[in-house]
Each structure stands twice: as structure tokens, then as C-alpha cells.
């Protein structure tokens, strides 16, 4: 078999999910895309957790938009995570804006979109909904749960919350909590959205508008932090945005002068077209709140004492948003518990975005790791 064997599903849950905040949601649904075939023992399932702006569409071309899945270079037949051997599940998290129940959904109690009344969700809440998803497929134990960035936080949380239900946690370009600097970046992004006149306290759907300019700024600031300084210097330098034959002189105005501005504006516009502002607020807050060591006075080793899964932790040398030392904190806590852990620090120039890009060392490592996986019966 060499086809991706994609299945798109909407899975409805009637039983309320009680969130960490104490709020609950019912009913709710999760958008799911699966690739490959679940074996009879149901031992070859791999859950892919997405980061801020991604979705359940992980691999292959979307039949409607034709767009390629966000981790298509990683997942598919013959790819590092080989769908000829593994059954891969992509899920859109609760509160996101790609079809799963979120702020844009209709609240059954009011018959209006949830908007700003959608409860805050946490990484732990997502993991709980993902465990219910596993139940839906009859999967007792995932061969692996894998994610980058915020997705890596979910993979880590799986190891803590469901130690008997995941054999391998693959945590890439992630951290056990956000630094003050990281929270600060999120706050700027949220501030941009909430101060947009079209935000309307989060209930902009009824007004027929979206806080586009806020979303654009949020994306721009985010985007800068996903790239390394060297990467930006190489991609854009101080190049002016000009036609090839136009003189390379300043125009002395605030139009798009530099290539890097053009790039950021393009990224901001593209993002504002497809992403929901309330979801941006929710997901950045979930990032801020994640801190599994919080109940152990910041002692991550204590928090990870329950772990039974084997871990693969990967960081990228030029990633300053989720720097290698943040991954090493996770590695150290696992070592303190003598948990199985492999750690690789990939020397890649692309900053945080490196986890989404093709890199032979990175992909060879993931390929070798999955090839070696012994599937429980």
C-alpha cells in the first residue's frame, strides 16, 4: 500500500468535558483526519498534536482547497513517520477554528456564536479530549504522541496525564512552560487583537466584521519570533521592495519599503484571512498557562515522576522562542527520574520554524526512532 489513505471525520461527543477552569462544554465535536490503517491490535496509532495555527489537516492535499497538510514532509507513505506502518491521527483541538467546537460555533444554550463566552481551554483539557478521541477509535495506548512547539507541550502532558496510554512521547522545539519573554510576546499579540475597533469584546461575528488589523499585527510579531536573526538576514537583508529595473532609493514614506515588511504584511494578511481572533486569544492563553510543574513548586522532576513513556526530545540550535535550554530542562527532569529519553539538538539555521521544515538530520532521526518502535499488542 502506498496511498495516504486519508479519512476525514467529525466526531461528536455528548458527554460534557469538564475543563481545568471548572467550566464545561457539551456537546462538542472534534475535526479529525486519519492516515494509514489501524492494525487489528490497535497498537500502531500515532497522535499528532498541532501548535498555534495548525489543524487536523496534517498530511496530503486537502480535497477542497488543494492545500498541503502542515506536516506533510514528515508524515505519509515512506516519510519519516511512515503511514504504511502507522495509523496517524490529526486532530483539531477544542477552541480552534478549523471545524472543531470553538468560539465560532453556535452555543446551543443561546443559539448565538460562543464568541468571547467560549471557556478558556488548557493543554491538559486538550489532552483529555484527545484521550476521549482515542476511546472513540478503541485505542487503549498510542504508539506515540508527537508534536512541535505547543504540540510538544501536549505530547509532554500526555506522558504525565496518561502514562499508561502512550508508549512514546515525541516533544519537538518545545518547553515545559513559557518564559516571561514568551508570555510577553503573546500579550502583545492579544493586545493588538483586543484593541482593534472591530474586536467588539470578542463578539464581532454578529457585527459581520473581524479584527483583521489586530490579527495581522499578532501574526507579524509571532512570525518574527519563529525565525532566527540570521535566517531573516539571509532571506531579506536590507533589500528594498522595488521592481527589478527601479532605482534602489528610499521613497521617504511609510509604504512597503523593505522586503521584510512586504513579507510580514503578506503573512499578516494571509493569516487574517483564515484565522479566528478569539481562537488566537484562547490558544496563546493555553500556551501561557501550561506549566506542569506548577503544583510541585516548579519542580519539573517531581511533576514527571509519573512518566512511564519513552521520550524523544528535539530542539534546534537557532530557535530562540523555544530555545534548546528549555528542551534540556525536560531532558534533565526525565533523567532525574531515570525515564527513557533521547535528546537531539539539531544545528539548523531556521529558528523555531525549523521543526516544520525539511532537514535531513532531523528527519533521519525521526525515521530511525519510528523504525525502532516495538508495537505493543
Amino acid at each position, binding site marked *: 500500500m502506498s496511498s495516504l489513505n486519508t479519512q476525514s471525520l467529525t466526531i461528536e461527543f455528548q458527554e460534557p468535558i469538564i475543563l481545568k477552569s471548572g467550566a464545561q462544554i457539551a456537546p462538542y465535536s472534534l475535526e479529525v483526519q486519519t492516515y494509514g490503517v489501524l492494525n487489528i491490535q490497535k497498537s500502531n496509532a500515532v497522535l499528532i498534536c498541532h501548535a498555534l495555527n495548525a489543524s487536523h489537516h496534517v498530511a496530503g492535499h486537502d480535497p477542497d482547497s488543494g492545500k498541503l497538510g502542515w506536516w506533510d514532509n514528515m508524515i505519509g507513505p515512506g516519510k519519516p513517520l511512515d503511514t504504511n506502518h502507522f495509523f496517524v491521527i490529526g486532530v483539531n483541538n477544542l477552541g480552534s477554528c478549523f471545524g472543531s467546537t470553538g468560539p465560532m460555533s453556535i452555543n446551543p444554550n443561546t443559539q448565538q456564536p460562543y464568541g468571547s463566552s467560549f471557556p478558556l481551554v488548557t493543554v491538559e483539557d486538550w489532552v483529555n479530549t484527545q484521550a476521549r478521541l482515542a476511546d472513540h477509535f478503541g485505542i487503549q495506548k498510542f504508539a506515540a504522541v508527537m508534536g512541535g512547539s505547543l504540540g510538544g507541550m501536549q505530547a509532554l502532558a500526555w506522558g504525565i496525564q496518561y502514562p499508561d496510554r502512550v508508549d512514546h512521547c515525541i516533544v519537538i522545539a518545545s518547553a515545559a512552560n513559557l518564559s516571561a519573554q514568551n508570555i510577553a510576546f503573546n500579550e502583545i499579540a492579544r493586545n493588538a487583537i483586543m484593541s482593534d475597533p472591530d474586536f467588539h469584546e470578542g463578539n464581532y461575528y454578529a457585527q459581520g466584521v473581524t479584527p483583521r488589523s489586530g490579527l495581522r499585527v499578532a501574526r507579524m510579531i509571532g512570525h518574527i519570533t519563529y525565525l532566527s536573526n540570521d535566517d531573516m538576514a539571509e532571506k531579506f537583508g536590507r533589500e528594498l521592495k522595488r521592481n527589478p529595473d527601479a532605482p534602489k532609493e528610499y521613497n521617504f514614506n511609510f509604504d512597503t519599503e523593505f522586503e521584510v515588511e512586504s513579507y510580514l504584511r503578506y503573512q499578516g494578511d494571509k493569516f487574517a484571512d483564515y484565522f479566528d481572533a478569539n481562537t488566537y486569544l484562547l490558544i496563546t492563553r493555553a500556551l501561557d498557562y501550561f506549566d506542569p510543574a506548577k503544583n510541585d513548586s516548579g519542580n519539573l522532576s517531581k511533576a514527571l515522576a509519573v512518566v512511564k513513556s519513552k521520550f524523544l526530545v528535539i530542539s534546534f540550535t537557532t530557535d530562540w522562542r523555544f530555545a534548546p535550554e528549555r528542551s534540556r530542562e525536560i531532558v534533565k527532569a526525565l533523567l532525574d527520574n531515570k525515564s*527513557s529519553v*533521547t535528546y537531539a539538538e539539531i544545528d539548523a539555521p531556521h529558528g523555531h520554524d525549523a521543526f516544520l521544515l525539511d532537514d535531513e538530520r532531523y528527519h533521519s532521526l525521526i525515521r*530511525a526512532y519510528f523504525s525502532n518502535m516495538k508495537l505493543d499488542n
Partner: protein
Amino acid sequence: MKLPAIRADFSAISDWVSSHSSLLDLGCGDGDFLEYIRQQKNVKTYGVEISDLSVLACVKKGLDVIQQDLESGLALFEDQSFDMVVLSQTLQTIHETETILREIVRVGKESIISFPNFGHWSHRIDILTGRMPVSKSLPFDWYNTPNVRVLTIADFEALANNIGLHIIDRVVLHDGKKVTFAANLFGSLAIYRVKSAEL
């Protein structure tokens, strides 16, 4: 069981490793020793390695490996957190010799350190004839060697004494056989079992 191309020090090191213990192999390379010791004894192992290709080789063998430069110390590892720390034929490749030795005995309840003995008579003759030695235990030319520190058995023991390493045991080999007489002259590979003198 056939164990081809086992490095001479593997079995000597293995004799000092207890079953049901934890072992950290610093500079584990492609994981050959870790694979060997896991076949010999029931041990919980980790390797530490800097090279991308070697890390990949370890992952292919299903070994736990931590990618890290030994020059920067062992901050990931708590005091006395391993029953055994192994530094097998790696000491001579490290610049921060004193740092790594102190770190090893901090992390390991016991440690094993092996290195090629520059004092072997054949190396001495090479030097006398005016050339840098190239031998089985020092298989590189001066211009392509990964070794940055060349030392003899006598040199190591002097340094060990200076920095508070207690030598528990020593085995010296040549061509895989134990050397018991004039070890610094007839031994090409030295293997030490040490611990911190303070503990």
C-alpha cells in the same frame, strides 16, 4: 554468542559493571559499548554524544542517547545519580580534562576511564626516531587525529591524585591481553576504575 570487533576494553569494563545498575557512557559514539553491555548485564543505560551521525546510529540501535558536548560539563546529571559513568577512550579527545574528570566522579558513584597509553614502548621509539607515533591504539596521523591530549599511565595517575580521584582498580592491556609488568612501557590501553576521593 559471537561478538565481533569488540574493543579490547569492553570486556574489562564490563567486569566492573553490576547488573541492575545504571550506567552513563560519555562519548558513546555509535553505541557499540552500550549495545555490548546491555547484552552482558541488565543495566539501565544512557549515552552522551555530540556527533549527529553517532546520535543517529544510537537511535537506530534503540539506545537512549543525549546529544551534548562533554566540554561543557554534565549539568544535566545530578550528583551521584549513576552507579557507573564510563569514559571509554574519550578522555584524550577532550580539552577540559580536569573539568570532565571532576564531573565524572561527581555524577558517578564509580567511574571507568580508559585511554590509549602514549607511554607504550613503540610510541617512545617513534618519538626517538623523530616521528609522532601511529599505532593500533593511536591510529591517526598528527594532522588528522581527534586526540587533543596525549597522556601516559604515569601522567594520568599524577593528575588523578592532584584532583581527588581515588583509583579503585586498574587494568592495562596490550593487544587485548593484560599487562602486569612495567605497565607504562608495555601497555597500550589503560582502564581505570575510580571514584571521588571525598566520598
